């Protein structure tokens, strides 16, 4: 997933299609933050936990919008799921991301997990396992910028930026200002086309 801007430009030439671009991403996040406020009746006990790397940036943006609309600052943190993944043995050991829980903790709160792409659902399953070791939230919800389908587990998102029908051979790439210098979601043709 880690990719540079130059990489993105070369993808664009090679027939990649931009699904969301520039302000589209923030428009989707604005809608999601309103949905969170609506569903949680003002986001009183909400804790936003981003899944590294890009989920963390998305969670921070959602928190900023919620503060803007409701004047309430919701705690934001990050939750690394690497040690809980079920595919660890398929690749060499990878570096860990950062786990940082807000000081308030997650017990008895409504945790909203935030990730960039929802695909097989395995990352979310790992996140649920990780949460289990960290505390006992009252409820756990899921926000994803892109839902590309092809679930392999009974998991669904509560908040979705964009539903994107894809074939399994295609690749979805998310670029965020904080990480990659620009906002975009690209759909790339896979190797077999």
């Amino acid at each position, binding site marked *: 997933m880690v990719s540079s801007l130059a990489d993105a430009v070369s993808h664009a030439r090679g027939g990649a299609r931009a699904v969301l671009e520039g302000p589209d991403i923030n428009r989707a996040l604005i809608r999601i933050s309103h949905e969170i406020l609506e569903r949680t009746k003002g986001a009183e006990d909400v804790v936003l936990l981003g899944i590294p790397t890009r989920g963390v940036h998305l969670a921070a943006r959602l928190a900023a919008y919620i503060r803007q609309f409701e004047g309430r600052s919701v705690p934001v943190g990050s939750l690394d799921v690497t040690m809980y993944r079920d595919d660890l*043995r398929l690749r060499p050991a*990878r570096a860990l991301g950062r786990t940082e829980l807000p000081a308030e903790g997650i017990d008895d709160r409504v945790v909203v997990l935030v990730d960039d792409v929802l695909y097989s659902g395995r990352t979310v399953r790992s996140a649920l396992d990780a949460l289990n070791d960290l505390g006992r939230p009252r409820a756990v919800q899921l926000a994803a910028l892109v839902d590309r389908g092809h679930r392999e587990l009974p998991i669904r998102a509560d908040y979705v930026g964009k539903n994107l029908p894809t074939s399994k051979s295609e690749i979805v790439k998310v670029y965020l200002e904080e990480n990659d210098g620009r906002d975009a979601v690209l759909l790339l043709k896979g190797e077999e086309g």
Partner: protein
Amino acid sequence: MKRHLISAADLSRDDALLILDTADELAKISERSIKKLPTLRGRTVVNLFFEDSTRTRISFEAAAKRLSADVINFSAKGSSVSKGESLKDTALTLEAMGADAVVIRHGASGAPHRLASWVRGSVVNAGDGTHEHPTQALLDAFTMRRRLGSLDGRRVTIVGDILHSRVARSNVLLLATLGAEVTLVAPPTLLPVTVDSWPCEVSYDLDAVLPKSDVVMMLRVQRERMNAAFFPTEREYSRRYGLDRDRFARLRGETIVMHPGPMNRGMEIAADVADSPRSTIVEQVANGVTTRMAVLYLLLGGADLGGEIQ
């Protein structure tokens, strides 16, 4: 990273930083109420200890257990080794039991290296003779980094029995990789003849080196290895090379004092110094578990690298 951890020299700068960064994340686990991760579930770690060791063995055991690995402890006393079994046969036995990693401490320098050619799993050197003790160097570097930030350009002074110290050798190699400047201080009789080829400075005068140091690491005087006249009396050694209250008072304010333990209070380090807030001795023990978790995760957590038996 390589499949085994036998020498601190096996680690590139990137490898070493990856281990330290991983340990930084894992350190948070010990602050949680559930101090366990499922990552190494179903993997077996064998602690193969031919020399007495309490802290290193329980540190590795705690690290493996926090990652949910199964741990088999094998100590030479009262085992088949005391009945005359060779290292190779012990290795083949462990191999047949399906060990994914073997943590070995052995009195002979080079034993882990030999073992690595007989087993399919990863071999972690937990101290071999007077050769190396790479996880001790890693936990020391981790402790320094937590206290001082980056190690680049930091001055580290290692004092004591360098000749018999596997801790000193591993520390010199790792700290050089990480960009620190190491000075060894010892009586000439307790320095190895090849010390000129090590990436460090050597001095015989502790008082000259101390004011410039960011880290002072005191080594234990290993009474069990003092079988020749390395120094006249313990009293004289202590006076010239011990970190007493006066010397401690002359250190710069931010200098930290380390000791790999077990220490001889009053011999190489004064009791007051060992208990001061600038001593990291207790931290080093906690950091040992974290650092060893990082090593075990990076060696065993990913795909099986498919080592061949030679």
